[in-house]
């Protein structure tokens, strides 16, 4: 087991190195840089001023030197300075991480707490009206774009309540604090819950047809015990995989929700930084997201072994 973990950790480092090279090269392949954009914002181009600024920002250095400077800084905890705000990149990125993490965490919580029980319910009552109704709900969850759902929620709150749940760093009441996070989390978590529900349902249906489930029933175990103790425990593995993938996706994939609800999180910031070609912000944020994805994958793999004793690593 220990050898497996060490091997996985080594692979994680190799993966992150590969990602760092890809991010760095891809960013430089995209046409235009911050200097082009700054001059665009100023409405003119002066070649001499442009060259000076490129030199000042280190953009005239050879690409390998630029990469080594970035990685060297990263290893020393120096993420560089944002080209736009001229503040340390770390100071720009750090406050945004908890905002997105909170939103993603709540969305996942919503997704798991709604998706798993409803998936089980749907499987246990297969072919009934309840099953059909739940399948319609899950299909609509998968079909509705979250930005549309978000806008709909905003419009409904304004016209029905005369109030709007957009981000406020200093909420005045508990209700507001709840609303500014939970409503966007529900908007984004609805799709995720639908996915979780469908995976749980299909996985449960497969397990419920196994011999050992029939044996458990024959031994007189209650429905609840069979469904939740015997079946769900074995059906939950693919669900964990999906939740893991969703968790990784949510860290960087909340752009639309963050835009609609005006939440100053990581995803919106990343897109804005990309628009400005703010390399220090984009590189470090994408690396952060890559680290989250790799760590979540690793954690999910470790969870498999914890949940299913038949799985053993490293043998």
């Amino acid at each position, binding site marked *: 087991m220990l050898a497996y973990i060490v091997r996985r950790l080594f692979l994680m480092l190799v993966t992150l190195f590969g990602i760092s090279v890809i991010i760095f090269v891809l960013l430089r392949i995209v046409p*235009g840089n911050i200097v082009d954009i700054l001059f665009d914002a100023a409405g003119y181009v002066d070649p001499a001023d442009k060259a000076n600024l490129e030199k000042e920002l280190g953009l005239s250095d050879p690409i390998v030197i630029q990469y080594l400077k970035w990685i060297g800084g990263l290893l020393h905890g120096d993420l560089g300075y944002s080209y736009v705000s001229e503040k340390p990149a770390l100071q720009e990125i750090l406050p945004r991480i908890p905002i997105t993490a909170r939103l993603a965490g709540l969305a996942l919580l919503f997704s798991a707490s709604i998706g798993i029980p409803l998936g089980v319910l749907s499987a246990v009552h297969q072919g009934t009206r309840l099953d059909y109704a739940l399948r319609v709900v899950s299909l609509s969850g998968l079909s509705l774009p979250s930005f549309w759902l978000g806008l709909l929620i905003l419009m409904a709150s304004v016209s029905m309540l005369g109030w709007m749940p957009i981000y406020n760093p200093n909420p005045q009441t508990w209700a507001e604090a709840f609303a500014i996070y939970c409503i966007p989390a529900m908007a984004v978590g609805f799709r995720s819950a639908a996915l979780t529900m469908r995976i749980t349902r299909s996985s449960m249906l497969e397990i419920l047809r196994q011999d050992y489930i029939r044996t458990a029933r024959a031994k007189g175990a209650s429905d609840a015990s069979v469904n939740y103790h015997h079946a769900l425990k074995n059906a939950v593995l693919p669900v964990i995989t999906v939740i893991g993938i969703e968790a990784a996706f949510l860290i960087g994939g909340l752009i639309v929700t963050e835009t609609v609800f005006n939440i100053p999180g990581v995803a919106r910031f990343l897109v804005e930084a990309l628009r400005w070609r703010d390399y220090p912000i984009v590189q470090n944020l994408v690396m952060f997201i890559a680290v989250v994805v790799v760590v979540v994958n690793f954690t999910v793999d470790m969870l498999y072994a914890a949940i299913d004793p038949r799985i053993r690593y490293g043998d």
Partner: protein
Amino acid sequence: MRSVRALAVAALCWLSAYDVSLAETPKSGGILRMYHRDSPGSASIHEGASYSFNVPFMPIFNNLVIFNQHIPQNSVDTIVPELAESWAWSDDKKKLTFKLRNGVKWHDGKSFTSADVKCTFDLLMGKSQQKFRQNPRKSWYDQVNDVTINGDYEASFNLKRPQPALLSLLASGYSPIYPCHVSPAEMRTKPIGTGPFKFVEFKANESIKLTKNPDYFRKGLPYLDGIEFTIVPNRSTAILGFVSGKFDMTFPTEVSIPLLKDVKSQAPNAICVVEPSNVATNIIINSSAPPFDNLDVRRALALALDRKAFISILFEGQADIGGTMQPAQAGLWAMPKEMLETIPGYGPDVNANREQARKLMQKAGYGPDKHLQIKVSTRNIPIYRDPAIILIDQLKTIYIDAELDVVDTAQWFPKVARKDYSLGLNLTGNAVDEPDQSFYENYSCDSERNYTNYCNREIEKLFDLQSSETDPEKRKKLVWEIDKKLQEDVARPIILHSRTGTCWQPYVKNVTVMSNSSYNGYRYEDVWMDK
């Protein structure tokens, strides 16, 4: 003499503006909450070329002089003193001297003196050791030889030749005085001014916060405790925020005509005004390469435009037709309608114009069996893209098959600079309704902002002639003549001048939206809230 008259007019203007306040006694307190349409690149007004900079940061500063903040139409007669107490032109009109206000403090406690005025304009003219990252309005001061000071409270602009427009340029929201003791880099991140509000913080893509300056030199002002801008790039969210009462005011001139209807239906008590913004939608032409190196093809293009169709589709009829200078009533320098309609393409009979255009195209070798294939390039932003699509449709009527070429913002200027386009759909905003700003910036042979490199030395002589003309009536006639020639030369065909809306809640008082510039009306020192 002129300055005395201007001061008298200014005093009257202030009095009339305060009539409103007298009717309702201003209340102090409250934070004005607005949304901001995007995250400005920095906090330095001098380095920006968008009113995204002026709106949040103009309240931090003062100019030497400023357009009266409660008269919508900016003109030289509405200029009032700010950091200057008075001004005077020399007899030969080549020296403009300002007597400065005593006892003004920067937000960090240091005293404002004439040295700060000199520093600011030395920086703008590129004469200082410190440099701006970008200096988009350097050309405004081309006629200024130098700025000299006489003691701590007098500064003079010494000109190469008379330039009456200089005073208007100095009154723009783009002309704040910066402190000598703060570097341009610091001004981008933590600006220090003398204005009614102090900078608190600017969180990129999140918010900008200003707080009341208790030591403001105008005692009793500002009324507001602060101004907070929440950056909301999504227009639907922003408008919903205003309707729900989360914001006291929309971002100025950012409510489009169709959106205005939504706002009025959902927030019937909101006060909304629609004003011209002095932003012209126009076509940039690459006349250095075929097919538009041919004057006949360029003229055909100008004749093909149905400006009323653009206005009715994009603005529900609420926009104006004009030349380079903003159309009347709001515009001060607009050609009379009769003169405008004599310019090819401006006549009311669109079919006759297009018939003429088709003949010109046939002369150039194109026709029903041989269409000209081109691309219309523009930025990938709706306000650019939408008129480009209408333009493409209209070009079909004169044997031109055009394809839309949307360009990422990062690539727009490099593409235009390397002349990698045939036609481009462009928007040009004028900071001041003033021919010197518009002509030199957009049409002068050596201007960095003359994207098309249009160059006509004869017209340039006329630019100088009007610029140095001190008789306003004579100058106006020269301006009309120049504007007409620019349109006849198809230098940068103007399609329309837009109008836009601004809304605020009924308890917000003393807001005035300027009608011939979107850049100059955001000092907000006497805005107050009845709440």
